[in-house]
């Protein structure tokens, strides 16, 4: 799993949720650029991606990642009120989304849907 969010707080929380469910966090990124770089480097099975990040936002990062790997599995992390952005992210290739505030069960369900 690759966790991308500009807030350490969020990375920690998402990381904790995933780890407690037995997943392994193999990398973190705090900008869109980093997310793309780390994806290419680590080839994670799943990426959680914040929509709003500095230095290339999450949506552009999804676009880049999908260009590199059409089968990439990206789970968007969004906030309430970001309908349009979530839609755009999914059009860019994201597979699903979760909405903050995160509930562990919701996050894990979404992960399951994405991993199929």
């Amino acid at each position: 799993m690759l966790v991308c969010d500009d807030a350490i707080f969020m990375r920690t929380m998402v990381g904790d949720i995933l780890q407690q469910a037995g997943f392994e966090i193999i990398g973190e990124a705090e900008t869109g650029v980093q997310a793309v770089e780390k994806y290419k480097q680590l080839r994670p099975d799943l990426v959680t991606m914040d929509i709003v990040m500095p230095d290339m936002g999450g949506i552009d990062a999804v676009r880049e990642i999908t260009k590199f790997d059409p089968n990439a599995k990206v789970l968007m992390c969004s906030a309430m009120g970001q309908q349009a952005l979530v839609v755009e992210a999914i059009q860019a290739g994201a597979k699903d989304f979760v909405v903050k505030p995160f509930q562990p069960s919701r996050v894990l369900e979404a992960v399951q849907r994405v991993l199929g």
Partner: protein
Amino acid sequence: MDPSRYAELFLTESQEHLSAINTSLLELERAPGAEAPVAALFRAMHTIKGMAATMGYQAVTEIAHEAESLLDGVRRGALRADHVLADLLFATADLLERTIEATTDGHAPPDAHDVLERMRAMTRLARATPPRSLASVRGGAAGTRVVVTLEPDTPLKGVRAWMAAQKLAALGRLVATEPAEAALQADQFDRTFTVILETAAAPDLLVQVARGAGFVESAEVHVPGAAPAVSPAPVTEEHEIPERASGAMHRPSGAITAEFAIPEGAERVRTQRHIRIDLRRLDVLMNLIGELVIARGRLQAIAADRKDAELDDALAHASRLVSELQDEIMTTRLVPVWQVFDRFPRLVRDAARSLGKDVDFVIEGKEIELDRSMLDEIGDPVVHLLRNAVDHGLETPAERRAAGKSPSGRLRLAAMRDRSSVLIRVSDDGRGIDRERVLAKAKRLGLVEPEVEALADDELFRMIARPGFSTSEQVTDLSGRGVGIDAVATRVRQLGGTLELRSEDGRGTTVTARLPATLAIVRAVLARVADETYAIPMTHVSETMELAEHVNETVKGREVLSLREDILPLMHLRDLVQLPRHRDRINHVVVLEMADKRAGVLVDRLLGQQDIVVKPYDGVRGGLALFSGATILGDGAPALILDVNSLL
């Protein structure tokens, strides 16, 4: 999940974002059309919102949410980033800060109603510009109907519905949705919506695909002229979480916030190898190294008695290591001054605005590092100096023009490194301190002789640094309550530093604080009086000497020390600490030095030099202004640290 674990992380991180918000707002104010600050503001608000929502901090979430909506309007170009907007955002930033503080302290948040309403009003204005709409779909056509009901309280249900439609569309051709797609996305449906398709896919497959959108409670398929296929009743699925095995890197489970550095191949990108450490841990380390230094002192004292070469050798080695460790820990505690200084532009702006002044404020030497706790302590005094400068130093634009200066005043805050000290300097190009008035007042208070005609800088400083001395007739909101420069001077002295002032009539004022870059461990001369040991920081000791009989003289009834060419005042430490004079004549002198002033202090006995750990000393404020702190000696006995500045 226990959110209290994250509360501290939340607080630290939101403070960083608040600081970024203020910086961006100032940028936006300078360049109203700029996109970058708006994007930065949006991100910061968004991040705070996300964190706050997760923590369940309702009030914080709401403010950040409204601000985000507002900024989104600016970003889409529906709102102009003018002064009205900037002011509202400044007010929002303040409110947000207070709300975060109150919330994390467990207090009731401040009243947000007014600011929220103003934001909402402006956002409504922005909504007049229609949001971007996605490919619209014709409604009310025939085909295979998939009726989907989402779970109650599905977050962003419009997007879920849209996802279901998209997934289904992949199995054929999307004819329409009911309600129409735009309404779907705008959440304008209860829980149930219909996707109409031209498709050859089996109903079971359609149901399965629709469910794949997530949060689907049920899905029904109505094929024209066929019996409906219904999804199985809502299932509580037991998700089996796979044991993951792939991926070579393991993240250590204990490291919560470590930046993860990847130890991999040649094209590794530049990774930050930073970790966050609770400041209290550093304080504990600091205390421990302090104790270790004290223990070393004790060992050295013992070894000095033993005269064992092997022991000396081993001790010298250990001693070097302790010194290195001490340096390392000191360095670890250093942080760049911008961590505190970055909030000052906002403060100066507000102060200048409220006084109708134009101020060009620059900060230099942001990267200079200072001990973390020192930096925390110096923040308030610097704020004081900045406010003083804006309030009293800098003139109004009209006054400046009349004086032939540029209409906007220049205010500079600079941090500089000077050997082991850090200088923090606040300078303005304002009117300077009114020497006449200070002199007049000083005479009135009987502080100077009536025949004195002018005050030099250091005298001027001594006057205005007296508690309660202020020339400001009106008390303004910003400063001038007569607790100005003396409070600053006291604080700086408590930190082991000195304060200096230069003022030129009509040209401006410069105040410089000289601070030790690191805190807590200083080298000191230990002196004994009666049963007490006192420590005198080496930075202020020019020499120690045995007093030869003939150089101890009396001039005008006061004892003096003639040292080479100079005559210095001579004090008895016994007098200062209110002990009777020694019955025998004593002749150990410590020569104190600070700036251009010197004096001798007579002590019973000199014990030598030692590193001491400065501990906070609460007696400073109330009692004798003679001591700046306390320490614990190698034998466990306490010793007071002389405040050389107040002696001279």
